[in-house]
């Protein structure tokens, strides 16, 4: 298919762009296969706006006489308005945008066409390989092995080709366990806590069904992670009620009789449309222009967004507490083990492991616990808060995770190497990107699409020093401790950087941030100067002494 077929009017002049907190600008609008480009063309202060079609969540059109107006609502939550003279032009442009922003073939997406304008120093597709991770692990323990059982994605379609499992469990047993777990997602290692050797595993629900099926290999596998005499905890991210209901559909939970060394704890993390609706309500409240204070708070409350944040964080803290304080191993799962499970396991690692609070460590965490672990990004991030599509599989699961990270970052502003901008950038790229990283729903799909060969990795771009400097937290001082966030309502706040990003003036806050950077930069410069002078003095003194001695 040629994009040109979809573009009936590639260009319109005298278009007026409206954005909140900016003056309206007149300019030219151009449509290309993947971008909407607006250029003010003013000589003195030319302004350009590039918008990926895939970033467009919904579009509305209105007409007053022959003046058409289209309102574009983006997945990054921004809303812009374009006034286009000429009814036909406007209609053409609107229908082109509609078609181009809803292409159904992945291979037509921009990452397949994007050619980087920067020098590639490191191929991001190869930056975080499971082998490297395993090497780190084997330097501290030999109880685990790398299994290639899923090499052709034959055992579990949503798992990566290699996974880390207990050494004592052979591939044959794994195959049996896979039959006993939803979507074949058998328990695998998620995190090893060096401090006390405790581990966190993740999986999907066991297929116990109504008649209480059991699987000896499954029991053996998870028991293999326990120290003699020690007990473990199973954190089920569903309420007991939901878990019980799942049995009717062939799912279920681990029963005490068969897993006597494990205690099961049920948490209640919502899924799918409940989360999506929560996001829609929250964004609606944030965009509400009414003046009434009461309505703002009640809408914030009614969206339940912060309730979800609190629940997810609480479950993650619980997992971390079991591991670090109770000295117990943990297995986390919900139903499929691709959403709430990953929220819990990845947040627990941020709490426990200082490495995950560095830029590279966090990237590695996203790769391991989200991309390789088979979080279906393409389904979940197909639409954002403005869409009317209401597909069951759309849900801001990853955004909730990023929000939780931001909450911890806010409580420990000096313990993270990255800043808020880094999290915002990840949110943007998860929903619309020139890079292939977040395309596809799992490693299997990514390999079929040949993404590593045909597209550029987000990490290749981010991990260059020019980009990295934007995402570095000037306050960072490595903190090797476990960081326990507070989950009290007073401690959790709306993430303004995402939700009020386009409808609050940020000038004064940006200035403050800049001031902060300057204070620290000046300090570092002075430090360097002092050190240089000291060295110079020392050298001169030694010279002196040598002369003296001579």
């Amino acid at each position: 298919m040629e994009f040109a077929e979809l573009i009936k009017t590639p260009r319109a002049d005298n278009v007026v762009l409206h954005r909140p907190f900016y003056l309206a600008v007149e300019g030219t609008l151009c449509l290309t296969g993947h971008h909407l480009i607006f250029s003010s063309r003013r000589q003195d202060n030319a302004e350009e706006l590039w918008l990926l079609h895939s970033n467009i969540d919904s579009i509305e059109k209105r007409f007053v006489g022959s003046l058409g107006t289209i309102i574009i609502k983006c997945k990054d939550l921004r809303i812009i308005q374009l006034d286009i003279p000429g009814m036909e032009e406007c209609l053409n442009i609107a229908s082109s945008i509609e078609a181009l922003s809803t292409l159904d073939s992945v291979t037509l997406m921009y990452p397949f066409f994007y050619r980087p304008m920067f020098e590639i120093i490191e191929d991001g597709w190869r930056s975080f390989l499971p082998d490297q991770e395993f090497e780190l692990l084997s330097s501290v323990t030999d109880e685990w092995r790398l299994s290639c059982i899923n090499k052709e994605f034959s055992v579990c379609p949503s798992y990566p080709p290699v996974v880390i499992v207990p050494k004592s469990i052979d591939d044959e047993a794994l195959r049996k366990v896979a039959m006993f777990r939803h979507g074949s997602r058998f328990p695998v290692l998620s995190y090893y806590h060096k401090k006390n050797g405790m581990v966190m595993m993740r999986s999907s629900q066991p297929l116990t069904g109504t008649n209480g099926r059991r699987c000896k290999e499954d029991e053996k596998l998870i028991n293999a992670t326990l120290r003699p005499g020690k007990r473990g905890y199973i954190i089920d991210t569903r309420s007991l009620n939901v878990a019980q209901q799942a049995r009717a559909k062939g799912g279920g939970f681990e029963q005490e009789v068969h897993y006597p060394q494990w205690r099961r704890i049920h948490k209640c993390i919502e899924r799918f449309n409940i989360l999506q609706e929560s996001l829609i309500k929250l964004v609606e409240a944030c965009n509400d222009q009414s003046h009434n204070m009461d309505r703002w708070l009640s809408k914030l409350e009614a969206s339940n967004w912060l309730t979800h944040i609190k629940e997810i964080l609480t479950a993650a803290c619980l997992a971390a507490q079991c591991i670090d304080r109770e000295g117990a191993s943990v297995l986390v799962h919900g139903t499929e083990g691709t959403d709430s499970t990953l929220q819990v396991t990845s947040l627990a690692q941020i709490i426990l492991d200082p490495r995950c609070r560095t830029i590279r460590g966090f990237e590695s965490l996203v790769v391991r616990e989200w991309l390789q672990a088979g979080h279906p990004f393409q389904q979940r991030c197909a639409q954002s808060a403005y869409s009317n599509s209401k597909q069951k599989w759309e849900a801001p699961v990853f955004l909730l995770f990023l929000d939780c990270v931001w909450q911890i970052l806010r409580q420990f502003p000096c313990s993270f190497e990255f800043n808020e901008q880094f999290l915002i950038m990840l949110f943007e790229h998860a929903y619309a990107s020139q890079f292939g990283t977040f395309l596809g729903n799992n490693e299997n799909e990514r390999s079929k699409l040949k993404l590593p060969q045909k597209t550029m990795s987000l990490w290749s771009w981010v991990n260059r020093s020019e980009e990295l400097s934007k995402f570095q937290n000037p306050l960072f001082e490595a903190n090797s401790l476990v960081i326990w966030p507070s989950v009290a309502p007073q401690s959790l706040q709306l993430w303004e950087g995402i939700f009020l990003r386009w409808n609050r003036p940020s000038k004064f806050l940006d200035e403050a941030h800049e001031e902060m950077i300057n204070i620290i930069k000046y300090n570092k410069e002075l430090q360097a100067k002092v050190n240089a002078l000291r060295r110079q003095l020392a050298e001169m003194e030694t010279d002196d002494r040598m002369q003296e001695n001579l």
Partner: protein
Amino acid sequence: VENVRLLDRLSSRKAALGTLYLTATHVIFVENVSETRKETWVLHSQISSIEKQATTATGCPLLIRCKNFQVIQLVIPQERDCHDVYISLIRLARPVKYEELYCFSFNPKLDKEEREQGWKLVDLNEEYNRMGIPNNYWQISDVNRDYGICDSYPTEVYVPKSATAHIIVGSSKFRSRRRFPALSYYCKDNNASICRSSQPLSGFSARCLEDEQMLQAIRKANPGSDFIYVVDTRPKLNAMANRAAGKGYENEDNYSNIKFQFIGIENIHVMRNSLQKMLEVCELKSPSMSDFLWGLENSGWLKHIKAIMDAGIFIAKAVAEEGVSVLVHCSDGWDRTAQVCSVASLLLDPYYRTMKGFMVLIEKDWVSFGHKFNHRYGNLDGDPKEISPVIDQFIECVWQLMEQFPCAFEFNERFLIHIQHHIYSCQFGNFLCNSQKERQELKIQERTYSLWAHLWKNRADYLNPLYRSDHSQTQGTLHPQMAPCNFLYKFWSGMYNRFEKGLHPRQSVTDYLMAVKEETQQLEEELEVLGERLANLQKSQLNYNKVKSKQQDRSKQLGLSTSNNSLANTPQEYSNDLKSFPSRSPSQGDEEDSALILTQDNLKSSDPDLSANSDQESGVEDLSCRSPSGGGCLPSEDSGKDSDEAVFLA
């Protein structure tokens, strides 16, 4: 009383055993743990309520709520002891004479001269001079000398030059409690001013020529404008109700060239209830997100804060942008009027956003114009209906502005919190009594100390590291977003949950940046010294030994200061008692039942073993980390820091 347990509100499991002491001025709880012997000091004047709860098996619980939002829960083993403590505290917390207050016994060991110096730190005449007054339009009037006209006003009042004594006296007779229009702020760039008064005694039709002339005089003092705004900060309904009592508001027909405007800020009773409701939300044990947000909304607190801010913004806009003078009043002109005038001044004039300027502002708009500190903050036993968090709201408005303009204020959040604390503490004389007149009669300045001097002495603790006097945010008028940005008003947990340390960010950006700035200063000094040394060395290659040794000293010093920076390791306590963790051995058999029990367990209580365990561990972290952080934590209790107070322990 011995063997008293101090409960931690966030997790009922963490109780500290210790001894309770009652002194003339403080309640002191000393923990039994021998190494730390952690002390909790509470001033009697901070106590807002004491509640004796039903005796339980462990003892008799006593709940003390403080005006600085601390809540202390004690369990006293013997009923009788508890009753004695309760009775004593009730008496001690409600003094009947000013002389019983702490400031009359508080002695920071300063000599007479230092005390006098302290009181001179803030000088209002100097402040009016700074505004450019007296000038061609405004003059100081001694019409109220000896408090002859209005006993709640200061003796020196600034009024328009054209307002004769006759006009002032006439106008004062037409105003509630004789609080006639007087100058609060003057903008020398455009001659616009903010004046304040109480409501006129207009009833349904009364008028007063002198009062009309007074307003005329205010307008004339601003030749650039042909009208003035009269802002009534009450809701219209309240103002109308006042007319029935012979009071009310200005009739636009009677006064030439005024524009009348209502700005609905609720009265002190509504505000008191609102705070009460919000504090109930803050006190909830492990509330859900919905409980909290719903409760916060239901309290209406942030709505009231916004109303005050909006009024301040309206006035600042009139003065700065339109160049129009404003007369502000409410009923008596000492609560809402003080709030609104001071918010407007703060927005208009960068001076008030400095530490010194902020002290001046409180002294000008609150202390001198007779804000009834004693009644509002219940320093002496009095009518509980008079109590209301009026200045607390102003202080919160400042905090909300600080959140929006992080570089605009010279001081930090701690400064505000400490001022709030001392408004209730009665440790310093500044906020005693209801008016200047009463303070003078009590000879406050000779018998007590000034808070401003105390804060000024410790000003390094109160600096905002992001403040730079040449930054754009510190110039000119601040323009906060008005509607529709409701979301800009946030719950201030640093104030209302200030004693629940577990709820706050564990690392303070402010403290970190302060440490960096301090180090920067040391580096600058060292750089200079090194530069000199280098030059000397280059000139004459002598004395190298001496230089060397000194340089080593220096580097040692610097090493220390760097480690001071490592705030990253601030202590952490996992205070989340929601998080539950069953650890009793599983009841075997009947799995579904046990699972059910388990969930209830999860919801209700945390396991004692585990929290004890985690306590211990976080305690270890606590100790190992607190030392490098130095002044990292918010000093919660001033009194705790003043070593002199140990005197009262004996």
